[in-house]
């Protein structure tokens, strides 16, 4: 693999726009970095989890005697024990309060926690968990979205939306359904437009569930200190967890402390309610310190990406304009809703793609099945609908005899256009991204299409995603007397490099050098509220809060310096080394400035800021909103690949990926995010898939689960940064965590179609699927 050379050296000048070395990169490489599980905690009892071996069943009884008889076992706790202690508060979730930490009365997926053993060591806890026996009464399971919609078996007797969301309130108590949320987008008259259009293409698309497989596994510890609960957990949402646990245990927010250190990857897996409700409920109700560490196999059933079925159609007129698009999107959310309803709405809404379409109709549903609960996954449900619209657009171009890149170019949304959801476009340069990736792979260069058994082709795709809105970020900046700074934010650095770029933002505003800004690990006792570290939102939201806090600090420093020098504030300027008065040319260093202000060494100054975004809630009937999102993400990918018609294997010669990031705070980290997303997307395109049989994951171990290794890399991978500054982004910046992944799978499938003429609508594009499609075409 070759790639752009990343400059990791800091250069003179402002910090923003420089490729500062990633914080903690040395210690991570040396293996000395301290992850969450390494944080010292009090001596804990270990939890061993007994899990359901039925996809859907009533719990008739739980036998715990033989587990209790094992030396070292302290206690066995069941869902009924927790329900007795906590009542309905036991049920948590970010959209629906439907998930108990231990199954209560009923199990809904294979692998669901049913009981836990508390033991003095981990091995005993796990061994004793195996000795628990549960008597089940079988209930017919709901195994896929179509069965969930058509059948009369229900995963939940009634819907339990979370009380805190007004837009979900109408669903309370609804029964005889597996659909927990439905979003509808209606614009124009798509049915008539489809009928009138000369060219229409359609397809049945499927993206399977996948597993996040972050390198760092899950762990959580909880214990009670006096009247409060301490929780150390691998979470990318510490502020959310504090709120959820406080609600569950009926505690004040200041009675719950949630801490996390840097994470070894997450990709959405360590979000919302994971291990925390279980360890918190047990620690609090039993007043015992407890620790839970998952095995790799347990992590596979903790959360997954949504499997998504899309039935869709797209039509164009004779001039090559897309005139109508329709999509029926079914998100398989598994046994518990998790954030599925939000995904169904906020990702379903872009199911027509980033195109100027006057007539659009989308129905997007979030559906319960008896499988592990699906949750957020890098892309938040958007890659699954992109798979549909980017395959259809490609087919439409080919039906019209048009070049797929040029056809997209003609139809893509431009600055100032109104998208099918009713919101205006800004700082989302699809055309710039499209042009960059097609140019990178030599889109118009001649291509030898056949070479022995190999067929070669090129494909392109774009991707659109809205940032989660409304959300809240806060920053507290402490400037120390020695001119070093300490930044308090609840954004979690899980490898994306947020600690690095937040430090760069502070350093840029305050003219500080590298290593002068330390970012504190999230600790809800210390660091202020932040909605979530997810959805590529931190650079923009936390970045804005951090920038505002730094600017407040800068203004105060200037004010103090002006007073000390006896000049007006407007005469003063913060420069490297201190504050300078332009009239007197006198420079006061920050060290001296703070020392004289407080008369003591080691003193601190504090500034804080909040950044909150707002939206216009979408119309319940039409899904339309004049401000559905704070900003858009725009990306594109182009690929040149070969298909071996003997084996069906795909070999990628060049993959180019571009994202409009507004402004790159740290170009090296942006490139790495684009590359990381592209590699993950390539895995999803080619082989990454959770395989289910009757509700059981059959490849849920690292022996069988397929992830890209160094041997699967494209021969060449080119990340391209496109910069169209956002008017309200910090220095114009936006996030990039998901942009690189979203268009990859359809770009690869479109290249396969270019090479072989076959259109595959079901991911992943395994060699077997490719060969069988080639054979089927041969038979026709």
């Amino acid at each position, binding site marked *: 693999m070759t790639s752009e050379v990343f400059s990791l050296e800091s250069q003179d000048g402002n910090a923003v726009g420089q490729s500062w070395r990633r914080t903690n990169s040395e210690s991570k490489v040396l293996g000395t970095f301290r992850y969450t599980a390494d944080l010292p905690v009090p001596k804990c009892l270990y939890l061993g989890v007994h899990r359901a*071996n039925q996809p859907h069943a009533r719990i008739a009884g739980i036998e715990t005697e033989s587990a209790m008889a094992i030396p070292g076992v302290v206690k066995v706790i069941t869902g009924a024990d927790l329900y007795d202690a906590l009542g309905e508060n036991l049920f948590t979730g970010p959209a629906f309060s439907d998930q108990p930490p231990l199954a209560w009365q009923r199990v809904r997926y294979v692998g669901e926690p049913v009981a836990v053993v508390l033991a003095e060591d981990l091995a005993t806890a796990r061994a004793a968990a195996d000795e628990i026996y549960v008597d089940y009464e079988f209930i017919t399971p709901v195994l896929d979205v179509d069965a969930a919609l058509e059948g009369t078996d229900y995963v939940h007797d009634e819907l339990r939306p979370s009380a805190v969301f007004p837009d979900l309130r109408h669903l309370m108590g609804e029964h005889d359904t597996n659909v927990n949320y439905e979003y509808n987008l209606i614009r124009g008259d798509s049915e008539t437009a489809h009928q009138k259009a000369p060219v229409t293409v359609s397809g049945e698309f499927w993206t399977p569930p996948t597993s996040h497989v972050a390198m760092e596994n899950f762990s959580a510890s909880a214990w009670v200190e006096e009247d409060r609960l301490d929780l150390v957990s691998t979470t990318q949402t510490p502020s959310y967890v504090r709120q959820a646990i406080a609600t569950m245990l009926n505690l004040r927010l200041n009675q719950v402390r949630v801490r996390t250190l840097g994470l070894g990857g997450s990709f959405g897996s360590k979000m919302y309610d994971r291990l925390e409700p279980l360890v918190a409920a047990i620690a609090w109700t039993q007043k015992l310190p407890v620790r839970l560490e998952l095995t790799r196999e347990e992590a596979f059933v903790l959360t997954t990406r949504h499997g998504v079925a899309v039935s869709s159609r797209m039509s164009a007129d004779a001039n090559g304009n897309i005139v109508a698009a329709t999509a029926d999107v079914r998100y398989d959310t598994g046994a518990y809703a998790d954030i599925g309803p939000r995904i169904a709405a906020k990702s379903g809404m872009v199911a027509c793609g980033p195109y100027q379409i006057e007539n659009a109709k989308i129905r997007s549903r979030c559906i319960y099945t008896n499988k592990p609960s699906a949750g957020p996954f890098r892309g938040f449900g958007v890659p699954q609908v992109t798979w549909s619209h980017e395959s259809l657009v490609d087919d439409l171009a080919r039906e019209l005899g048009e070049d797929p890149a040029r056809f997209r170019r003609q139809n893509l949304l431009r600055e100032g256009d109104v998208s099918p959801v009713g919101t205006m476009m800004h700082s989302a340069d699809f055309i710039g991204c499209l042009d960059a990736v097609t140019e990178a792979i030599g889109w118009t260069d001649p291509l030898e299409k056949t070479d022995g058994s190999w067929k070669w082709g090129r494909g392109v795709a774009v991707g659109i995603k809205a940032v989660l809105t409304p959300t809240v970020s806060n920053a507290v900046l402490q400037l120390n007397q020695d001119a070093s700074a300490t930044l308090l934010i609840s954004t979690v650095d899980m490898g994306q490099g947020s600690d690095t770029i937040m430090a760069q933002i502070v350093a840029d505003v305050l003219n500080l050098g590298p290593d002068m800004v330390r970012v504190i690990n999230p600790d809800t006792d210390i660091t202020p509220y932040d909605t979530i570290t997810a959805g590529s939102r931190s650079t923009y939201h936390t970045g804005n809060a951090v920038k505002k806090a730094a600017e407040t600090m800068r203004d105060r420093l200037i004010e103090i310096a002006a007073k000390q020098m006896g000049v007006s504030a407007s005469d003063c300027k913060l420069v490297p080394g201190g504050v300078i008065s332009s009239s007197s040319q006198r420079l006061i260093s920050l060290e001296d400035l703070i020392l004289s202000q407080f008369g003591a060494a080691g003193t601190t100054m504090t500034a804080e800021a909040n950044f909150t975004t707002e939206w216009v809630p979408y119309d319940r009937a039409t899904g339309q909103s004049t401000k559905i999102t704070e900003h858009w993400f725009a990306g594109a990918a182009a690929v040149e690949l070969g298909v071996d018609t003997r084996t069906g294997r795909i070999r990628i010669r060049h993959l180019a990926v571009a994202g409009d990031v507004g402004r790159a705070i740290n170009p090296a980290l942006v490139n790495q995010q684009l590359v990381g997303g592209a590699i993950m997307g390539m895995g999803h395109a080619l082989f990454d898939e959770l395989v289910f049989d*009757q509700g059981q994951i059959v*490849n*849920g171990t690292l022996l069988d689960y397929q992830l890209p290794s160094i041997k699967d890399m494209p021969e060449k991978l080119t990340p391209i940064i496109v910069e169209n500054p956002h008017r309200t982004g910090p220095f114009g910046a936006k996030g990039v965590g998901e942009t690189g992944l979203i268009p990859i799978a359809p770009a690869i499938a479109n290249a396969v179609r270019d090479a072989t003429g076959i259109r595959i609508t079901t991911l992943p594009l395994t060699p077997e699927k490719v060969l069988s499609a080639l054979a089927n075409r041969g038979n026709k």
Partner: protein
Amino acid sequence: MQISSNFTIAAQTSHVFDTLLDPKVMIKCIQGCEELERIDETHYRGRITNEVAHIKFNARFAAEITELNYPNHIRAVLNGEDRHLGSSIKVTISLNLEPTEEGSAITYQMEIALWGKLGRLGESIVRRKSLEFERDFISELSRACVQPEYTPGPALSHQEAATPESVQIAVPPAAPTSHPLAAASRHIGWFAKLLAFFRRSR
């Protein structure tokens, strides 16, 4: 996981049907079956043990006949659980018998669900194990149906011809309707035939 296949037994359909419902014969047809008893007309229970790839399982099961149309159709559901391995199995089997010139043609579909630790072992092991079960089942069932003095042999998973070395349970001779001698004469090469059938069906 769906498995379907068909095979022929050189015996009358009604006899094959009766044999299928006889726990004393079935205990030998089901590889690793150590206990099997009929509780009532439609309910059975038992225990099965086996080993594959250093993994030993020991599962209690209950079976219920959910459809019965004598002597042509049986549908049964089996639920089993290995407590130690935290795994459960559900097998739904639908079996049809048709009289043919050679005896009885049997077609069946099985839907196997394996949940828990064993379920994630991978399909190949389960399929391979099912194949062994199937092979032994057909072999023993044939012997039970076509031999005049059937004595169930030990279920041998790795040998093509089962030679009964230790006789554990004596089963009465087949019912008079089975024309045992005529059936036995057509029995030659049955194993090769059923293997061929089996391969064809995959």
